[in-house]
């Protein structure tokens, strides 16, 4: 990938990009390794929680409730944040958000000086709007301070995962980037050596640069507070040491009350990095009014950005996309993502969440191939901490794409439309969430054929997943998944149902 941002408007179709990327065996190895490690860690810490399913239900309910009253909670957040000394800005779209941030950075200097540098905390929202490029063009260099983002920035690369953006690089590749870009004639090759190099490289910037830009994990309407979770302490540096802090947040990031964090702060770390709690969570409200030697920045801005989110809200079936807390668990669990890595998705949001979020952020004008970048196996739904039914949304979006393109070359889309209709029926009738797997079997019916042994194979997925199926034929989903088989057996055995 080049240094140009991942832009769904210009990115090649998933099928094309995937075809190229699955040929990169080093990348595939790195991605497989990383996703496997995180999945194992996640499974372990989730298993520690007997009330995990209850937490998921609460998380889902909190997010749904927030979306139903989004205007109310945003206004409440604005009121409380303002009362605490913060300044709230609103942006209809990416361009407005970029201009607001640039304007704020330029006016943040002491005595009329215009800063030429900012320090930054990893934020997918600022990646979404390609803020760094815009800042650079305005004469402001943004130093990424998260280790993974630093690797990406110095390597002129692009993020491939929402939580661990550089998981497609291994230590040898990172060492090479650091030696070249930090001008280090010598550098050890252990992860510790590499992290130490990053510490030395960034320390001076933390102590010197007076303006910081961040995203936000949660905005608390009740208090006007903001919460950021992180691991390395780079976040705390950016949130605490500068004079000015500018946080860019999608309007979907608000939560009603402080108490709601007791749910989300349990769901997020366990799902994202497989930790019981990530090393640091920061919560702050506005600014400390103490004149000299106060706690944290003296000026604090929040930019509330819509950028198509209000349109997603209008689509009743797809609205749940906005429940997302960006944990990345669906990416790690996705068999397609594990093969292609994140770049094939042509968007900073890769994997299952990217497949549903990106086309919608593009108002279905671009990235129409992404809803097909899935085998509908349902693994994403199963791990999602806020119970977003990703397969359901994928099907819904495929339907939209098919409708949109119902003239022209899409003769082959017709059987899929039929399958989609059948699927819609299933969804309405079956209350078990694992229906998504049954659904996958239905949706693929018109596309599979039987081989000599009577085993079903799919060798051509509707246009889009072609990049993947050209490398490997995809076995059709078994009539019964292992779990379904197992549960049926258990049910027969003891008449009990252990469904979640």
């Amino acid at each position, binding site marked *: 990938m080049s240094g140009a941002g991942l832009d769904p408007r210009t990115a090649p179709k998933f099928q094309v990009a995937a075809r190229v990327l699955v040929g990169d065996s080093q990348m595939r190895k790195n991605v497989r390794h990383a996703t496997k490690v995180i999945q194992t860690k996640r499974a372990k810490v989730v298993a520690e929680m007997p009330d995990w399913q209850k937490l998921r239900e609460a998380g889902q309910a909190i997010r749904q409730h927030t979306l139903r009253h989004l205007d*109310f909670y945003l206004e409440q957040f604005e009121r409380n944040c303002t009362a605490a000394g913060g300044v709230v800005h609103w942006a209809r779209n990416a361009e407005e958000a970029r*201009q607001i941030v640039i304007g704020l950075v330029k006016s943040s200097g002491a005595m009329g000086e215009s800063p030429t540098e900012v320090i930054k905390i990893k934020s997918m929202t600022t990646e979404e709007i390609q803020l760094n490029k815009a800042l650079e063009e305005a004469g402001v260099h943004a130093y990424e301070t998260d280790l993974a983002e630093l690797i990406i920035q110095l390597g002129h690369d692009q993020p491939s995962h929402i939580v661990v953006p550089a998981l497609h690089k291994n*230590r040898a590749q990172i060492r090479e980037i650091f030696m070249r870009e930090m001008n280090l004639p010598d550098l050890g090759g252990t992860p510790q050596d590499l992290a130490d190099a990053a510490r030395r490289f960034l320390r001076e910037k933390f102590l010197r640069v007076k303006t910081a830009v961040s995203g936000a994990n949660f905005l608390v309407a009740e*208090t006007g507070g903001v919460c950021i979770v992180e691991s*390395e302490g780079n976040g*705390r*540096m950016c949130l605490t040491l500068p004079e000015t802090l500018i946080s860019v947040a999608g309007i979907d990031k608000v939560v009603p009350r402080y108490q709601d964090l*007791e749910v989300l702060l349990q769901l997020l770390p366990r799902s994202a990095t497989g930790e*019981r*709690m990530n090393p640091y969570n920061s919560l702050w409200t506005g600014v400390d009014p103490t004149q000299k030697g106060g706690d944290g920045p003296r000026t604090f801005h929040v930019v509330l950005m819509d950028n198509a989110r209000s349109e997603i809200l209008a689509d009743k079936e797809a609205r749940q996309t906005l429940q997302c807390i960006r944990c990345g668990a669906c990416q790690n669990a996705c068999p397609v993502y594990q093969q292609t890595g994140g770049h094939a998705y042509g968007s900073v949001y890769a994997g299952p969440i990217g497949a549903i979020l990106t086309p919608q952020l593009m108002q279905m004008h671009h990235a129409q191939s992404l809803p097909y970048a899935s085998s509908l196996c349902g693994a994403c739904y199963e791990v999602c901490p806020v119970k977003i039914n990703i397969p359901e949304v994928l099907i819904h979006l495929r339907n939209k794409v098919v409708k949109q393109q119902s003239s022209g070359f899409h003769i082959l889309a017709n059987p899929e439309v039929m399958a989609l209709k059948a699927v819609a029926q299933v969804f309405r009738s079956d209350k078990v969430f694992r229906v998504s797997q049954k659904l996958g079997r239905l949706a693929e019916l018109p596309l599979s054929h039987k081989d000599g042994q009577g085993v079903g194979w799919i060798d051509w997925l509707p246009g889009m997943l072609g990049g993947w199926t050209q490398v490997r034929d995809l076995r059709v989903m078994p009539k019964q998944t292992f779990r379904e088989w197992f549960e049926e057996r258990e049910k027969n055995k003891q008449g009990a149902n252990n469904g979640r």
Partner: protein
Amino acid sequence: MDVELIAVGAREDVLRRIRTSIGTPAANAPAIEAEWNTLPREYNRVGSLDREAVLEMLDERLRDYDASVIRIQSGAVAETIAKQLTERGKHRLVIPKGLAEALGEALPAGFEFVVDEGLSTTELDSFEGVVTASTVAIAETGTIVLQNVAGEGRRAPTLVPDYHLCIVRAGDVVENVPEAMTRLAATASLATTFVSGPSATADIEMTRIKGVHGPRFLDVILVT
């Protein structure tokens, strides 16, 4: 550049679009509050372990994330601080206002303790470590919660120096996250930091490495 002029009318536009999209007539505050009160919360809101098991769990989980833990009886705080600092070879430390009062004991002699009265970042960088009390600790997650109150102070002093010695009183230890949030609710708007082990990263091949930008060493004295 006047930032006010960049997105004139955006606020009204965004709110209007949201209202149109939601599709139902706007609910009033009491109705929304009533709805919030009915949200399902069947997860564990209170713990089930006895006191000793909770303290044991905190001890184990802090260690699991690379912090070291020293358990002592009250009255031995000052001498334990002295012992721990000597062992670590730390002599010049920054402390928040009101630390001795928060600990209920005078600080040990033989060290240079400098009270943070708004020290600059560069000044903070010259200390070997920081000593603080804490507001709450969460056993299940191995977390210590710091707030901007007497004995804990501003956020920067617990961030810039490379070593953090933190004193936790057994009475402030809760079993799970909901219990902690309940305790913190009254002071929700204070600057708050949850610390779970020393700074770490897993960004390189998912290997957890201790110590990136925050303090690389965290010692906890747990006082019963």
